[in-house]
């Protein structure tokens, strides 16, 4: 856990009125209706229906809310998965459902190490960028889960959550040196990879980063500064490919080729 916030318990809708110093953040998906947060003392309440399953609330806090809290602490947190190879780690950015987890799980199956599934905290140590794991496991869509299920075992909640299965990552690493980012583009018939400019990379990074409160100027400014720095330091590519399990090994080859790596680098 790289963010230390105190969970103060649940709160009812009646108690969501304005409170000096507290911000109300409504959520659009999942079992939680809203969060009431007090940033300066790092405290928060959860507003959710009484019948909301506790394991789903806990899972939601760990997977969806935690990255936002880490971002609120002044960190750049990308909505991305990340796999490590012997040559360095690569991150895959993209909206939910674009295939980040499936591609990462597939690379993991072929010898790479999964670092994070859905959220990576990006840090610069003065010389290199590093990606840190912020995921509690891997979340796979049902079709990907069926294809890859022999490799993984399920974690709680064992039923589908937000339309995905939650599975353990056997070979997960806590962090790795980040050397490139790939933005998953809309599905395409053919596999192609195109380098993108620093300014486009900056916008892509910002578009795929977590923030707790978009109206918080300090948080937004910090995110912007780090995104610009990251965009200038690392190569970034648009990755187009068909969402076809049979062709994922070709996608791996294309990624390794553009990175100038031999397949054995996995």
């Amino acid at each position, binding site marked *: 856990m790289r963010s230390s916030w105190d969970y103060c318990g649940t709160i009812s809708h009646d108690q969501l009125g304005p409170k000096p110093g507290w911000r109300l953040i409504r959520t659009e998906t999942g079992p939680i209706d809203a969060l009431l947060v007090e940033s300066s003392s790092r405290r928060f309440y959860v507003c959710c229906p009484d019948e909301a399953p506790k394991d789903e609330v806990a899972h939601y806090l760990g997977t969806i809310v935690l990255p936002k809290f880490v971002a609120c602490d002044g960190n750049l947190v990308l909505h991305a998965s990340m796999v490590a190879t012997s040559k360095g780690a690569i991150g895959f950015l993209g909206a939910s459902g674009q295939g980040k987890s499936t591609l990462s799980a597939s690379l993991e199956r072929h010898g790479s190490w999964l670092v994070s599934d859905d959220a990576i905290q990006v840090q610069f140590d003065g010389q290199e960028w590093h990606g840190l794991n912020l995921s509690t496991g891997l979340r796979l869509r049902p079709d990907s889960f069926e294809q890859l299920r022999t490799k993984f075992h399920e974690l709680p909640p064992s039923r589908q959550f937000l339309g995905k299965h939650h599975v353990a990552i056997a070979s997960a690493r806590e962090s790795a040196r980040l050397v490139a980012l790939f933005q998953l583009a809309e599905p395409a018939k053919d596999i192609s990879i195109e380098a993108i400019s620093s300014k486009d990379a900056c916008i892509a990074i910002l578009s795929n980063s977590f923030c707790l409160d978009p109206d918080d100027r300090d948080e937004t400014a910090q995110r912007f*500064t780090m995104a610009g720095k990251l965009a200038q330091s690392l190569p970034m590519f648009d990755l187009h490919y068909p969402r076809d399990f049979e062709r994922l090994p070709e996608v791996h080859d294309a990624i390794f080729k553009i990175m100038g790596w031999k397949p054995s680098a996995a």
Partner: protein
Amino acid sequence: MTCTINPDIRYSCSADAMISRLGDEIVILDLKKNVYFVLDEVGTVVWDQLQDGQTPTAICTHVEGSFSQVPDNVSADIYAFLSQLLANNLIKPT
């Protein structure tokens, strides 16, 4: 929305605008609206000239002298660009 640019006064960066310089280009973040603007190479030159305290008239002269192939209506383009910056509160008269 369009805003009229005075050719002879100086404009400076608004407190709500934050910039990130990426090579020859600039990305501007509007902190108030949380919206990003990307400037191309010419836009970046215009922006830098604004920050150096140049008036729109001086900026047009500078751009015309800085690029080998400048379209005939470059001044109109620059004024339109400055008007956009002003309309989005990214610059303000000083």
